């Protein structure tokens, strides 16, 4: 394997990491910062992708599609927060798990009801398709570079919002003690509805952006959900920086594991067995990574002790 290929794969890993971060960004707010286990996050991601595909089909404009994705997801998020989630902040994680599990059922089949059972078409806009040549002669898809840019921007903005603004402080305070922050004059209900909607909006944005290079179909949200949880937990709940680093670690592990583990196994067994065994181990790699991190640091890389 040539050095240049290895470098390219490392870039792929990092890029996948940033993409994961983009997908996890909304969840970082809702789960990481607000402390709410929202299994329906994947559904919001799906709603964004479907809204985008639908609008893109109607208007042919990718930009409008993105706007629609964000609007639809934010609206769904706000609605869900006001009708369901609001009653669950005080409840323990169990009730949140059950309620949002129920929401997955409703959203998934509801979407299928509206859009049918076949995958939808959503493609990257003409202007962003094709590749650019990176130093070293690596041809890299332009769209992916744009994704990296958006992911980094979203990350930075989130970090600033949470760590550097008063709103961010109030959100974090609200996770700790809703009653108290309200008694000190903060309209925590409205704030949380807003933040939940923002988290949903980011999920919808990610769904649309990533949906354009993947498939837009019912059920697309669930694998993302699990990955996003993994990312946030590795990084440590509540830490944006942690989520970012967690995402990069997961991206690298997944990408490089998939490539190198079969190669390593080839040193011991025949090619076919090695590919299979290596791939099997590779598909477990991120979960192994996550448990190792948690065994080493029970509250994630940047999490704080309870």
């Amino acid at each position, binding site marked *: 394997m040539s050095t240049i290929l290895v470098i390219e794969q490392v870039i792929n890993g990092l890029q996948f990491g940033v993409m994961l971060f983009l997908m996890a960004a909304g969840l970082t707010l809702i789960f990481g910062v607000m402390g709410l286990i929202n299994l329906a996050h994947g559904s919001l991601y799906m709603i964004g992708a479907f809204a985008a595909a639908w609008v893109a089909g109607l208007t042919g404009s990718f930009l409008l599609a993105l706007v629609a994705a964000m609007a639809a997801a934010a609206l769904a998020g706000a609605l869900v927060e006001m009708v369901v989630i609001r009653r669950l902040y005080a409840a323990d994680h169990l009730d949140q798990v059950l309620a949002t599990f129920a929401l997955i059922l409703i959203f998934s089949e509801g979407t299928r009801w509206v859009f049918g059972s076949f995958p939808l078409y959503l493609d990257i806009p003409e202007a962003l398709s094709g590749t650019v040549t990176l130093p070293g002669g690596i041809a890299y898809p332009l769209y992916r570079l744009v994704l990296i840019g958006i992911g980094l921007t979203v990350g930075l903005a989130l970090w600033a919002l949470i760590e550097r603004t008063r709103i961010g402080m109030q959100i974090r*305070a609200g996770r700790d003690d809703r009653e108290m922050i309200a*008694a000190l004059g*903060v309209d925590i209900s409205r704030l949380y509805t807003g933040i939940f909607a923002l988290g949903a909006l980011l999920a919808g944005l990610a769904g649309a952006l990533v949906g354009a290079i993947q498939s837009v179909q019912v059920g697309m949200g669930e694998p993302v959900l699990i990955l996003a949880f993994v990312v946030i937990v590795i990084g440590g709940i509540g830490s944006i920086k942690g989520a970012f680093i967690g995402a990069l670690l997961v991206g690298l592990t997944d990408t490089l594991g998939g490539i190198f583990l079969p190669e390593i196994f080839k040193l011991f067994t025949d090619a076919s067995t090695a590919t299979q065994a290596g791939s099997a181990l590779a598909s477990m790699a991120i979960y192994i990574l996550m448990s190792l991190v948690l065994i080493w640091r029970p509250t994630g890389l940047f999490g704080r002790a309870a």
Partner: protein
Amino acid sequence: MSLLEIRDLTASYGVTQALHGVDLSIDAGEIVALMGRNGMGKTTTVKAICRIIASEGTLRLGGTDLHRLPSHRAARLGIGLVPEGRRCFRDLTVSENLVATARPGEWTQARVEELLPKLGQRRDQRAASLSGGEQQMLAIGRALMTNPRLLILDEATEGLAPLVRQEIWQAIAELGHSSGMAILVIDKALREMARIASRAVILERGRSVWSGRMDALDEETARRLIGV
């Protein structure tokens, strides 16, 4: 008209009624002590004022019916609360705790740190890792930074060292006199309350059973109702 006006206030936790009729009023610039044995409803009264629990009866601040407002709107009318048990925001640093809910006015972070120098030293430490007393100071600072018209201190000196406690009592007394803040204090330090409060209300089993000027509180009543 009093700043805070409470008449015949009742409240319950589920099926158990905790307040059976509390009367209490405070004028601007006045310090009133709310007294009573453990479990008599002092904290419950505070929670009702702050709209943390539902209640019935008359409950007005500056003429506005608090019963019509949610907790945060009531607070914005000018209530500053130092709650029982501190309840600092654990994940926030000391500065963040102070700033997060601050409202403009004469109490700034600098002034709070002047009153409670320990907070200045621990500015970037997470509240969860503060010592008990430091957390108590933070809770007081946080309430002051909302620049309230009515400051409520529910066991605000619990766990503070005697020296700090004296300083705080001193500051409270000054606050009442100079800035015109109305103050409701609940504390086990009866001696200090007696010194700074002008009036007292005593609760027994959720009812206000005695109220009057501090100097009118005789020893016999105190022994019977408070246990000293």
